[in-house]
């Protein structure tokens, strides 16, 4: 009984923190329609800022807390509203998701940049050393504070929403967003107030949770992400239900610590409890209504790739890899090897996100499963283990997607996130167990060792061979992805993304197609994971964690989620010689940059390749002599490097100059001929709707632009003056 009381109190304290952060999340969602994936990261930033003032600079506790809560957090809220969130008004749910995720990742990167993650930091609990003795139990003043603060927040929100004018209009938005906008209540003021309150609550939770664990940016973010389960229990609408959800969550976590048997197989489950609660809460949600226009709308370019272009691309990838393999030193090649695994994991997102418009946050988890399969089955270097990895991942993908299918948009994404976090916390670190007489462990006892593949009787031990083999696998999978895109199935997926409602009325079973594409994506990710593990030589579950997957998703979206070329960019950027190699002191630059680029997705949904690179380069490709010149330069420089005349750096700079310079030459030629502006862009049949993209965000006016209005929007061929560049 005594034990039970202790855990109940500890669970209540945890619940208090969850309630505070989750109610902030719910409030911002209901008022602005944006599910803020960076909510956890805001709390994390606040915790670090609090540490900086309280411990780093030794300021008084009260002053530090007040500055964090009532100066920094509101400022952040106002800045976020004005700088990022306001522009999301009227964009697709997917854009909102990607942008807020990117924002969170930026916060994470910034925190790790400012506060060196290899330094040990702790924050002393509030009222250290004071405990309240209540009969048999003792409650620390810190826990007591948390409980009181949670209560105050509950009462405060109640008063705000029911007793103030601001609150009443905010509640009205909850019931009907468009209606409130039409009635003319200032939605900007409402939104700003919501973001400020949301940030303050996130910060409050961050500050309160900080003393219970070592300050670590990722751990803090994840811990607060757990609170999302409470919001989902509140169906993202009801604040009282959110508090109930937090209570369930906090007690579940606490009792799982107390009463789960001390067994290594079950222990890890404790860490997965919030994710499991989230998953169950999602499954209990009512079926989402079938509506059109839910996902990335038709501002995007979605050209059907040609076989000829794809074949050329594949050949270039392999040729470039061979050339690179011959000039790079072996230790550089060891790290470059990672490129293809990551590229394939990036590629795996294309059918699911790019074609079908479904967002998965667990692609890295499938990669981890694939790696585990390859590590176990490929012990003798059998490359067929990659196919087994694909098969296993496809099956797991089906099992994950099946219950989640009925969910749409953010709920689907949340369920994949819950799956990823649960796998990270529980399944991947499982110690070995016996299954049907075989000893089995996802990652052995901590790390899987991969043996090089054997092809045709010879092991691919050489780094060069592995590197080139990776590019061949990537090129093959690119062909598969393009084949899917060109097939009837691919077209149906595109159609499904454009209008799920129309698909249903045409007799398409959206669930079956979504299941199929989810399984396909999982299978591709599994192959990528296997190859990634292979290139690392040995891999721990840590390599496949949730946050890494987010970076991949963001890079893919930024570069162009429907172009196979984005896979290469993803691999090179995340696995290749990164910025961190050039600026060792700025090791967080990569994630900050990815995040910063991701926050721009709301306004440029197509990505760099379709809207930047491809139009620019198409004018080069059109001119065979120019293309020839480019090939001559690249091959020539490479030959010079091989013969030792120049070094790698010179080669890199010349190649880079050629890549940038050639389109310039093409443009100059066009300009002379007087055809520059119209020709300098997309082919005529690719049209871009200008009006819709630009008017909505600026005026902040009604959310949804009916498709029927396309007639009123300005339709111009892309590449007309002022647009092509």
């Amino acid at each position, binding site marked *: 009984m005594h034990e039970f009381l202790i855990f109940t109190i500890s669970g209540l304290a945890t619940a208090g923190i969850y309630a505070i952060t989750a109610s902030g999340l719910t409030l911002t969602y209901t008022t602005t329609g944006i599910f803020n994936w960076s909510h956890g990261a805001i709390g994390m930033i606040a915790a670090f800022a609090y540490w900086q003032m309280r411990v780093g600079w030794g300021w008084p506790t009260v002053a530090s807390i007040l500055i964090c809560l009532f100066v920094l957090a509101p400022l952040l809220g106002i800045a976020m509203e004005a700088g990022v969130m306001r522009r999301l008004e009227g964009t697709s749910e997917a854009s909102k998701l990607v942008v807020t995720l990117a924002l969170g990742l930026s916060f994470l990167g910034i925190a790790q940049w400012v506060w060196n993650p290899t330094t040990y930091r702790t924050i002393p609990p509030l009222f250290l050393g004071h405990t309240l003795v209540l009969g048999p139990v003792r409650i620390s003043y810190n826990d007591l504070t948390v409980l009181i603060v949670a209560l105050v927040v509950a009462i405060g929100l109640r008063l705000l929403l029911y007793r103030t004018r601001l609150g009443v209009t905010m509640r009205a938005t909850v019931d009907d967003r468009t209606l409130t906008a039409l009635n003319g209540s200032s939605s900007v003021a409402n939104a700003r107030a919501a973001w400020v309150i949301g940030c303050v609550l996130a910060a409050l939770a961050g500050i309160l949770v900080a003393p219970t664990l070592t300050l670590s940016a990722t751990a803090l973010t994840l811990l607060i992400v757990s609170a999302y389960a409470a919001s989902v229990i509140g169906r993202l609408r009801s604040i009282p239900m959110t508090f109930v959800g937090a209570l369930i969550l906090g007690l579940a976590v606490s009792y799982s610590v107390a009463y789960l048997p001390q067994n290594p197989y079950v222990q890890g489950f404790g860490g997965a409890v919030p994710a499991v609660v989230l998953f169950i809460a999602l499954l209990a949600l009512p079926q989402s209504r079938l509506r059109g226009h839910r996902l990335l709308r038709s501002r995007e370019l*979605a050209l059907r790739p040609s076989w000829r272009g794809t074949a050329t691309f594949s050949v270039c990838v392999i040729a470039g890899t061979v050339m690179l393999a011959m000039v790079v030193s072996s230790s550089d090649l060891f790290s470059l090897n990672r490129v293809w695994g990551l590229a394939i994991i990036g590629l795996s997102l294309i059918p699911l996100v790019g074609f079908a418009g479904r967002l998965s946050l667990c692609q890295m988890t499938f990669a981890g499963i694939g790696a585990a399969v390859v590590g176990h089955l490929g012990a003798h270097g059998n490359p067929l283990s990659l196919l087994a990895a694909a098969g296993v991942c496809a099956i797991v993908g089906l099992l994950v997607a099946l219950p989640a299918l009925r969910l749409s948009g953010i709920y689907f994404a949340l369920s994949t996130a819950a799956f990823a976090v649960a796998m990270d916390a529980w399944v991947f670190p499982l110690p070995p167990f016996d299954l049907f007489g075989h000893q089995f462990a996802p990652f052995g006892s901590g790390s899987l060792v991969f043996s090089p593949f054997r092809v045709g009787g010879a092991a691919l031990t050489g780094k060069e061979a592995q590197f080139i083999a990776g590019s061949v696998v990537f090129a093959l999978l690119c062909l598969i992805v393009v084949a899917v895109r060109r097939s009837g199935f691919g*077209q149906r997926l595109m*159609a499904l993304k454009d209008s799920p409602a*129309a698909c249903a009325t*045409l007799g398409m079973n959206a669930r079956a197609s979504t299941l199929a594409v989810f399984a396909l994506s999982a299978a591709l990710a599994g192959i990528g994971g296997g190859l990634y593990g292979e290139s690392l030589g040995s891999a721990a579950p840590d390599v496949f964690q949730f946050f890494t997957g987010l970076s991949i998703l963001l890079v893919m979206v930024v570069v162009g989620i429907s172009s196979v070329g984005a896979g290469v960019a993803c691999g090179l950027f995340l696995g290749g010689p990164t910025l961190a190699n050039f600026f060792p002191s700025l090791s967080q630059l990569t994630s900050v940059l990815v995040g910063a680029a991701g926050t721009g997705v709301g306004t440029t949904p197509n990505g760099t390749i379709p809207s930047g690179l491809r139009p620019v380069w198409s004018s080069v490709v059109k001119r065979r002599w120019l293309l020839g010149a480019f090939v001559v330069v690249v091959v020539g420089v490479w030959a010079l490097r091989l013969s030792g005349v120049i070094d790698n750096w010179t080669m890199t700079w010349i190649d880079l100059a050629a890549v940038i310079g050639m389109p310039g030459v093409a443009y100059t030629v066009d300009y002379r001929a007087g055809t520059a502006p119209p020709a300098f862009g997309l082919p005529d*049949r690719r049209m871009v709707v200008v009006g819709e993209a630009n008017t909505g965000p600026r005026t902040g006016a009604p959310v949804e632009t009916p498709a*029927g209005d*396309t007639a009123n929007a300005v339709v111009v061929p892309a590449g007309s003056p002022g647009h092509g560049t």
Partner: protein
Amino acid sequence: MGLEVTDISVHFGGLAALSDVSLEAPDGSITGLIGPNGAGKTTLFNVIMGMQRPVGGTVRLSGRDLRGLSPHRRARLGLGRTFQRLELFGTLTVRENLAVAASMGQRRFSRTDTVHPQAVAESLLDHLGLASVAEVRADALPTGTGRLVELGRAMAVKPKVLLLDEPASGQDSEETTRFASVLRGLADDGLAVLLVEHDMELVMGVCRQVIVLDYGRVLFTGDPTAVQQDPDVQQAYLGSLSGATDG
């Protein structure tokens, strides 16, 4: 047999959007469904299609009760519809829109007379006069043409009953004329067409029967001339029509 709707009621919150609505759209004829904005026409379509669950009432297609069936199952039984707000596949071309629709309608294992989706698309392009815009992305089309494409897309799956939600809005008179002849053709082929439309000229021109919906109730049922002459209908709807634009 066609489509039979019996005693359908839908509530939003405390508000009754439809109360005990019954109507019939027989095979081989065009039935008009008119009423002021907010009368519940689109809601009724959603109920028929399975996208909105009613609190009571039944929907029958060729005598079969559709209760509990999901939209795509209903579509496969022969229900088709277009949308008031266009729901084109914006990233695909017109040709692709029609072809992909044709491929969705074909059940891989049960059809014997499978026609290649491309061929279906080709004949529809021809039939609807869309050949000149075949390679244009659907989201770049003017609304009027878009409505034709949506009709074509619905026809591609060869439905028995077609629900058309303001198909003529945004069309110029030339397009409307073509549209009317296409509709008559469909009825001649034996389809049951339920037409929601504000263009009275079109409604009166093609419909054999007209149903007037007001505040979620059936106000009147009869042939076009009778509707025009009914004083209640004039009071509720037609009189105010001059000011109405779209829904």
